[in-house]
């Protein structure tokens, strides 16, 4: 692509003009030759349908990938806390995007969540079903504090093969999933911090509680917007 040949009258910069939106230039009318060049590209991601149900991923592949991710993250982390924070941040980006994908796939019945309880139910059911093939096992409100809720999973899919050694004090690798939840909540404007805690129950040694702590502002908004 010889972008040097193109002279653009509206900018003082003669070089560096590329097709595609450039936020520091704003919308520019490109010569049609550009358009045909782009159009002629054989493959582009925008022609794929997002509705095409990709075959389910093999759990083993997922587990190995997840395991490798944890292993590598652990090597670059200073402690359990940092490891969890990093796993959380990996999930976070997934959550940001996943929310949009789920909503899009709902098609005509797509909607946005505006209330705290509704967004939690959405995560508990739709999100869990899409990610893990079944709804979560519980959704509870904290008795102690106004801003805390809990989503409970008796056997988290991602961590079902993982035993955390005793010296990894309190680590729960579902921090990744917590990150996904946090990513969903934040981008839906339900600012929160989400953490994963192991709380074994009879027959469920890996039972995990996802503790969701909402930003104070979210509660304030709920009170102002929906009190009447």
């Amino acid at each position, binding site marked *: 692509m010889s972008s040097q040949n193109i002279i653009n009258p509206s900018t003082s910069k003669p070089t560096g003009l*590329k097709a*595609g939106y450039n936020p520091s230039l704003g919308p520019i009318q490109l010569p049609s030759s550009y358009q045909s060049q782009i159009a002629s*590209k*054989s*493959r*582009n*991601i925008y022609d*794929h349908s*997002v509705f095409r149900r*990709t*075959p*389910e*991923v*093999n759990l*083993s*592949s997922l587990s*190995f*990938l997840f*395991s*490798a991710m944890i*292993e*590598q993250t652990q090597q670059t982390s200073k402690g359990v806390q940092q490891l969890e924070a990093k796993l959380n941040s990996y999930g976070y980006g997934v959550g940001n995007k996943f929310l949009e994908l789920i909503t899009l796939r709902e098609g005509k019945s797509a909607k946005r969540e505006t209330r705290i309880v509704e967004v939690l139910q959405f995560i508990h059911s739709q999100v869990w079903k899409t990610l893990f093939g079944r709804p979560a096992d519980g959704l509870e409100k904290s008795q102690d504090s106004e801003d805390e809720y809990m989503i409970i999973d008796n056997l988290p899919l991602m961590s079902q093969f993982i035993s955390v050694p005793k010296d990894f004090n309190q680590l729960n690798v579902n921090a990744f999933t917590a990150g996904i939840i946090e990513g969903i909540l934040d981008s839906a404007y339900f600012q929160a911090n989400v953490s994963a805690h192991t709380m074994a129950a009879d027959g469920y040694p890996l039972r995990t509680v996802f503790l969701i702590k909402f930003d104070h502002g979210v509660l304030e908004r709920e009170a102002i917007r929906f009190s009447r």
Partner: protein
Amino acid sequence: MGYSIGIRLIEDFLAKTGTGRCVSFKETAEVISKIGFKIFLNIIPTITNWTSDGKTFSLIIEENPLAEFVELPDDGKSNKELWYSNVLVGVLKGALEMVQLDVDVFFVSDVLRGDATTELRLKLNKILKDEIPAGED
């Protein structure tokens, strides 16, 4: 990262499929494509481009689930330097090494870069005979 996955993944593969040792590298190719890729990625790459000595072949990956919706950044470098699905290289290398096959694995083309196909090449260097566990012959 791929390598460390590979050396672990092979155990899963063997334990779950009960696959035995291959008679030939051709058979190995078949197992990789029709069982390995099928199980783990649910695709069956085409085996092609065998060299005459039977030690090198290519896997053509039609629909790469790893690269679905991936668009390489238009930064002038990625198109030349990045093999997006390079994790596969490590996995294959690690896994094969565990069954005593020293193999070079590398991408030669990728549709992400605008190539017509995504082609992964495997070249057998040698069989690590010394490492074949005793009691296997």
